[in-house]
């Protein structure tokens, strides 16, 4: 069965298969090339890049929870200069399709990042992270306010980033909202080529012996198989009202999990925390998708997108 096509088009980016990795779970893409050929993935999504390097939050930054983990990394990253100079050449040498995740503290910073990445060939698509839960001081309020929690802000940010780049632009949204359709539609209205969802769910874990939060940042973002049903439902909600594609993610750890997202309406999927458990998890999912198609007599994976029977 070599005539099965796994190829998809994610908002203008042609991917040879619908599997990428979630930003922040795969470093700058090249670290795991000794476990498997990372260019086998539909795309590699790099850790959030900011204009300046960031040291990130104080430790402890992670806490394990049932079927998942909380993190409060705080976007520790090398910054765009080091990325372009040191990481990018290796990714290009390996022939990877690159989705660059970006983080800024204003729409203009996002625009500058997108512009530089396009100008210097630093990405094949841009994923703007409007939804990191860990870069604000959680003590300040009941929870940080995210750009992705305000549809008006999502539309404004998207418009400004859109005007700075012609690369495929994805807007990464937060599940910490009442109705995911509102920010998703706002991203579409702002000119996004796709939406990426979901980022992590805000959560908290407490050590009852010390009575302290397990994370120094007090709260963090929950990921892993525990959040998968929430993510599938949000992809399903968003995909039904959008005309742009969805990059689905949240707790995918098996090929069957990935297929749930496709059936719910995702055009492509990202594998996140599962990589922590198995460094080659994303590649195994590519293989599993092929096997599933063979088993089901499907010759083009696009037949599965939004093919939920209900």
């Amino acid at each position: 069965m070599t005539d099965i096509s796994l190829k998809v088009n994610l908002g203008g980016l042609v991917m040879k298969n619908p599997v990428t990795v979630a930003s922040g779970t795969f470093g700058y893409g090249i670290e795991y090339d000794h476990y498997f050929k990372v260019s086998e993935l539909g795309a590699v999504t790099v850790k959030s890049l900011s204009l300046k390097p960031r040291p990130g939050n104080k430790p402890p930054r992670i806490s394990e929870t049932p079927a998942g983990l909380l993190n409060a990394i705080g976007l520790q990253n090398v910054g765009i200069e080091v990325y372009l100079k040191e990481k990018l050449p290796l990714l290009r040498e390996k022939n990877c399709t690159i989705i660059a995740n970006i983080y800024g503290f204003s729409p203009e910073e996002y625009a500058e990042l997108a512009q530089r990445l396009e100008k210097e060939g630093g990405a094949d698509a841009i994923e703007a992270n409007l939804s990191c839960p860990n870069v604000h001081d959680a003590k300040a309020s009941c929870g940080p306010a995210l750009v992705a929690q305000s549809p008006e802000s999502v539309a404004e940010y998207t418009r400004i980033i859109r005007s700075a780049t012609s690369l495929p632009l994805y807007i990464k949204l937060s599940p910490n909202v009442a109705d995911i359709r509102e920010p998703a539609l706002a991203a579409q209205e702002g000119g996004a080529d796709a939406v990426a969802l979901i980022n992590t769910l805000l959560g908290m874990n407490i050590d009852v012996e010390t009575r302290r939060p397990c994370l120094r940042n007090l709260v963090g973002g929950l990921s892993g198989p525990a959040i998968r049903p929430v993510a599938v439902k949000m992809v399903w909600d968003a995909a039904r009202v959008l005309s742009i594609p969805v990059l689905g993610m949240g707790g995918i750890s098996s090929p069957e999990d990935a297929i749930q997202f496709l059936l719910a309406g995702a055009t492509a999927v990202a594998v996140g925390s599962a990589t922590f458990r198995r460094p080659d998890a994303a590649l195994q999912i590519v293989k599993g998708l092929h096997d599933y198609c063979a088993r089901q007599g499907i010759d083009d994976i696009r037949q599965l997108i939004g093919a939920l029977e209900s």
Partner: protein
Amino acid sequence: MTHLLDCTVLSNAEVAPEHRRMILRGEAIARDTQPGQFCMLESNPGLIPFLRRPMSIERSEEDRFSVLYKIVGEGTRLLSKIQPGDTVNVQGPLGKGFPIQPGYERHILVGGGIGIAPLPGLAEALIRQNIATPEVLLAARSRDMLLCEEDFKSLGCSVLLTTDDGSAGMKAFAADALREMKPHEKTVVYVCGPMIMMATVHRLCMETGSLCLASLEAHMACGDSVCMGCVVETTFEEEFRRMVRVCHDGPVFDSRHINWNAGAPVS
């Protein structure tokens, strides 16, 4: 070179109350391990616990390697149920181990509790490379928690014992016992144990002018450089070096580079 390998468990026996030694057959990992490196063990095939467990590699020889662990939670409890003949998926060896330091007159290994885990392999390497037969200081809460005493003695190491309750050796904390050993400028101290113990050993070494190499512990998600979850704070000024990954930049650090006042990465 790091490997992802299904390893056969050869034994998984109790070495002290709530402490086990697991010996695994995994040729590529055994062959490539340097003293002080660690591995990530999958504790169960299911989703709870979700993450692997980081473990120092105690020793490696021919086609096998061992880990020492203390049963502290669900992951290690599941590991303790594994029977000889079972298979465990292991990722390793990982991290940067102990840099072997020739040119020092004395080599002192200080292990606190389960922190002893990476030191037997280091003692063997120092002896094998004709660098020194190290002196060993073993610290534990009480007599029955002292690990590997006989292993070090059979290598020819002098072993000093210290316990919090005085049930074996000196009744003292590790740093106080180390002071009695009179380390000096030509001494290298290799230490692994609780953060508070390593911090006091570090301060003593700064007083005596000794080099202190500390093997740190941290909660880890990936264990191999990508998640940025296991960082500790350093004494470096530059922003991009203020946080270092225990899994990738360590687990062994020159103790002068660690900010010991920052609080423990493991709560």
